[in-house]
């Protein structure tokens, strides 16, 4: 009976999504409480599902009275539970930030809940066409949320994503159609069987289907060179939206790719089609390199970490294409870990923007002095993204790298070594941009008025104006050099929240969540073996 939890988990946010609009007729701000209740309920349901899966293995539920393979099936196994947990936790945690940072209004929360419901469905569905539906729900709610602050730039970013995303989803649908033609079924498990029985792994229809699905999902995942919508979307979206979108949307799409590749097409299909995996590895490698390099070039913080996601998802796609157990484990761990890391990073950046108006790398001078806890947490998360060991960011990358080397050793295919080398180079790039952030936090701004060692300026406020003039004079003829060097230290914006406990001028609840997220990434890093234990049944099934 516990399989009823699955449709309930999807229905709760979807139904709740209608409430803010309905209640909005009467109440000004019904959205946030509704969203809070719905996401809390989702978190509870996720916990229950997780317990059931831990106790009795995979859950499945047939919707309505139609039995699969005709009816739609919902499935929860170890992999989907892990991603579902990420969805539940992040959507709940982001709410605290959204409450203070906006966007406000009931319609935003409707969209928010629609997105959460779509993500939940995407994770739990066991049917290819149903997956397309949820993909579209996620996509459409994301388009709406990106434009939620009604600025021109975000509208353009949203439109770009809308057009490209729709084409991508169509490609996916086309791929599903091909597969349906070849097998006559849409249920994932059934199709896995039917591909072998009615077609073959070499069937052009099956191959074309996989090509279209990979292209469509690859767009949603945002791998190079079809990533162009993603940096714009992340950068232009309101901070709270970026936080949830960056943590969950691409993650869920990558989950879908993983699910389709391993549950529908299976590892044998990948093994039988070397060109497919090689092609995917090449794209993944290019994605890792280009994403890292582009990230290192950025000066806008959100854009920098947006490009970083391109690189990280490149690694996950590589893990999928490598098709060996270690790499896939690494891919799953990195999928979840990266989601958590990016949630924390974008939350931290959002907090700094909210409290201090800092959006560029150059604005961050002496951040560790004015906002020590925020800066510390962001630094920890950034180091995790680099892959410094006690963090989960290290585990994922490590397993992918090891898996890549293993596959080369086993099969003599040089692509694996290439991926390992590319991951190494990407780590250096990641270090370079994370180090720039940390350098701004902890070392820049020495001697600036109000910055490090500027106590003497406090005594004479009359001097401050003179200093500013001098700074401007230098900036006028100094070009780029002085534009970075002479920025003042991080100063709070007017009316920034104040807390009695910490010097950071950021919302305390969100700060607590940020710190919790930072420590969670480290705690999960220590739980490497537990993660392995948890995913072991899934991996055993996939590689059986």
């Amino acid at each position: 009976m516990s399989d009823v939890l699955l449709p309930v988990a999807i229905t709760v946010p979807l139904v709740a999504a209608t409430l803010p609009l309905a209640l909005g007729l009467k109440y000004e701000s019904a959205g946030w409480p509704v969203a809070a209740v719905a996401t809390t309920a989702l978190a509870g349901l996720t916990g229950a599902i997780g317990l059931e899966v831990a106790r009795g293995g995979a859950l499945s539920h047939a919707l309505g009275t139609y039995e699969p393979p005709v009816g739609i099936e919902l499935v929860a196994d170890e992999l989907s539970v892990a991603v579902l947990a990420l969805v539940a936790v992040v959507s709940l945690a982001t709410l605290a930030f959204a409450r203070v940072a906006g966007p406000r209004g009931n319609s935003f929360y409707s969209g928010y809940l629609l997105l959460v419901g779509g993500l939940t469905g995407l994770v739990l569905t066991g049917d290819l066409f149903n997956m397309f539906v949820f993909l579209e729900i996620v996509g459409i709610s994301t388009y709406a949320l990106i434009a939620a602050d009604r600025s021109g730039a975000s509208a353009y970013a949203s439109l770009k994503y809308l057009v490209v995303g729709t084409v991508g989803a169509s490609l996916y649908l086309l791929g599903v159609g091909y597969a349906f033609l070849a097998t006559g079924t849409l249920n994932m498990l059934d199709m896995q069987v039917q591909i072998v029985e009615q077609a073959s792994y070499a069937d052009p229809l099956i191959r074309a289907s996989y090509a279209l699905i990979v292209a469509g999902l690859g767009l949603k995942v945002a791998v190079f060179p079809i990533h162009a919508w993603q940096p714009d979307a992340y950068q232009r979206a309101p901070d709270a939206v970026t936080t949830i979108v960056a943590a969950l949307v691409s993650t869920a799409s990558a989950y879908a790719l993983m699910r389709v590749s391993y549950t529908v097409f299976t590892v044998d299909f990948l093994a039988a089609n070397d060109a497919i995996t090689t092609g995917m590895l090449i794209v993944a490698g290019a994605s890792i390199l280009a994403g890292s390099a582009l990230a290192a070039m950025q000066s806008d913080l959100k854009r920098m970490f947006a490009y970083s996601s391109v690189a990280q998802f490149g690694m996950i796609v590589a893990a999928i294409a490598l098709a060996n157990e270690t790499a896939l484990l690494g891919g799953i761990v990195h999928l979840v870990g990266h989601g958590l890391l990016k949630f924390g990073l974008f939350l931290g950046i959002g907090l700094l923007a909210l409290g201090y108006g800092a959006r560029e790398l150059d604005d961050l001078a002496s951040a560790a002095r004015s906002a020590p806890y925020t800066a510390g947490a962001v630094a920890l998360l950034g180091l995790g993204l680099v892959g410094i060991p006690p963090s989960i960011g290290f585990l994922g990358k490590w397993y992918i790298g090891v898996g890549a080397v293993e596959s080369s050793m086993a099969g003599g295919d040089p692509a694996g070594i290439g991926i390992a080398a590319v991951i190494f180079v990407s780590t250096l790039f990641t270090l370079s941009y994370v180090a720039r952030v940390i350098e701004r936090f902890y070392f820049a701004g020495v001697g600036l008025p109000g910055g490090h060692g500027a106590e003497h300026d406090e005594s004479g406020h009359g001097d401050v104006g003179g200093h500013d003039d001098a700074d401007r004079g230098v900036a006028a003829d100094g070009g780029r050099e002085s534009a970075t060097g002479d920025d003042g230290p991080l100063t709070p914006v007017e009316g920034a929240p104040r807390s009695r406990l910490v010097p950071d001028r950021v919302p305390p609840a969100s700060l607590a969540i940020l710190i919790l997220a930072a420590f969670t990434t480290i705690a999960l890093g220590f739980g490497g073996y537990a993660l392995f234990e948890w995913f072991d049944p899934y991996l055993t099934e996939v590689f059986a």
Partner: protein
Amino acid sequence: MNSILTSVPPYVLLAFAALAVLALPRRLGHAAAALATTFTFAQAVLLGDGGTGAHLATQFLGFDVVWFNVDQFSLLMGVVVGFLATAAVLYAYGTEAPTWVTSFALIYVATTVGTIYAGDWLTLIFFWELMAVTSTLLVWQYGGAAVRAGYRYALFHGIGGTFLLGAVVVHFANAGTFLFSATTGIHASAALLAAIGIGVNCGFIFLHTWLPDTYPRPHVAASVFLSVFTTKTAVYVMYRAFPEGGMWLAYLGGFMAVYGAFFALLQYDPRRLLSYHIQAQVGYMLAGLGLATLAAPSGEFAVTGGFAHLFNNVLYKSLLFMAVGVVIYRTGVEDIREMGGLWRVMPVTFLVYVVGAASITAVPGFNGFISKGMVIDSAHEVHNYVLLLDSGLLWWLLILGGVGTFMSFIKLGYYMFFHGSATLTPKDATPFQTAGMVLAGGACVFFGVFYYQLIELMPFTEIILGEDVYFKPYSTSHLTESAALLVTGFVGFFTLKRPLGWLAHRMPDVDAVTYPAVFYLARGSIWGVTELWAAVDRAVMGTIATAEWTGMHPREALARAGVDVEIRTGIGRSVLFLTLTAGVALFVFVLS
């Protein structure tokens, strides 16, 4: 008895004594120091009676080592070093040496003894490097001009030590063991490195300039210690490395004898003059060790001659440094031309000087006569490059060195003790100085007369005293030879006095070239390395800056390259890329 003695490495005791000198009052401290050195002496004497063997053999860092290796050679070194160190401690006490000098001297003696009793190359190189450090400290302690000279000294010995270290490493790599007992000398592949490394300490020509540079500078008591331990230990280690000798070593020794004696002749600083004689005397010893290559029993005879000369040299060379030190201590003058007529006011010092000078110049009745005669006799058997009198080049070199020695000690004595009227009226030596000098001088006379005792202390005693070897120091030919040298020396000095004086101002040693050369070479290489690195740094930073700028301003960079396009991917281009990707994927996936 022996088992107790062999369990106490003397250098540990000496190191503790060095600390005691600092901790205790001056008198007590020096007493402790003298006790420790006396113990070193007595232990070596007692172990001579059946105490030989590799004691304290153990494992260190996973290597087999011997920390207290007692054989004929290390014992004779232990005897003479212990004896002379005792005399030198007494002398230091009598010369008002600061306790720091005595303490550094003691730790220096300790490292010397450690080197002597090492039974493997690892222990040896450890103490060898320490010896360089402690002797540098001893020089530096005096301050003033000694600091710069000490710095050059440290550079020389640092480089030399590194060479020897390299030799030891190469030796181990080839021989697989550090133990002396496992191989005959150092492995052939390490020979050159070892020869250079040890040669620095021996004062090979061109590597010797630290000797006259350093030894005249520190405290007079420190000079006494320095003058005998580093170079003589180096000769001893040379034997450890090359027990089979070699003609290259013998000829090198011959040239060193001439070179050192010649430059000594040009000096007016008494301690500088004596320092050049160290090089000359080491030349005789190396000649003896080098001639080990001769057929038995001549080879053994030559080695014994070399070691006997080493033994005697420790005694008389320090005696001379003591006597000269007394004069400097009492007068404060370090130029012999400003001295003169001192024999009246310093009769004891004069007498001691005469004993030392007679020993070093090999006057019959003094110990130098015995050992130098042995080396020259051995050289007489070498008939390569025969010159006059049916004698080879080596013999003539050694004879020439002998003449130079005579001349320079006549010069030294003449200037210090005669040479015009006495302008200075210093007191004579202090009681403890006298005690130290009498100890050393007494030994010089003793071994000159009772030369069988000397041979008893030497290795290969049976061979020397055996039937096959002609060992009669006081034979007519030896006496004639000595007299001829003496006469030549006197005549030579007084006829050549003026030309030599002229030459003394115009004849630089090789350091006039080598020091500036090394200095400018080092400065040049430092400049070169710095500038090269700076260039690399500029290039790298320039490249990074360009890459960064290009990354930050891609549009401008393209414009500069003449391409003016929008590089941001708009909506249309995004869709194009997507369709292209899907197309390529289809193409690849389906048609593969």
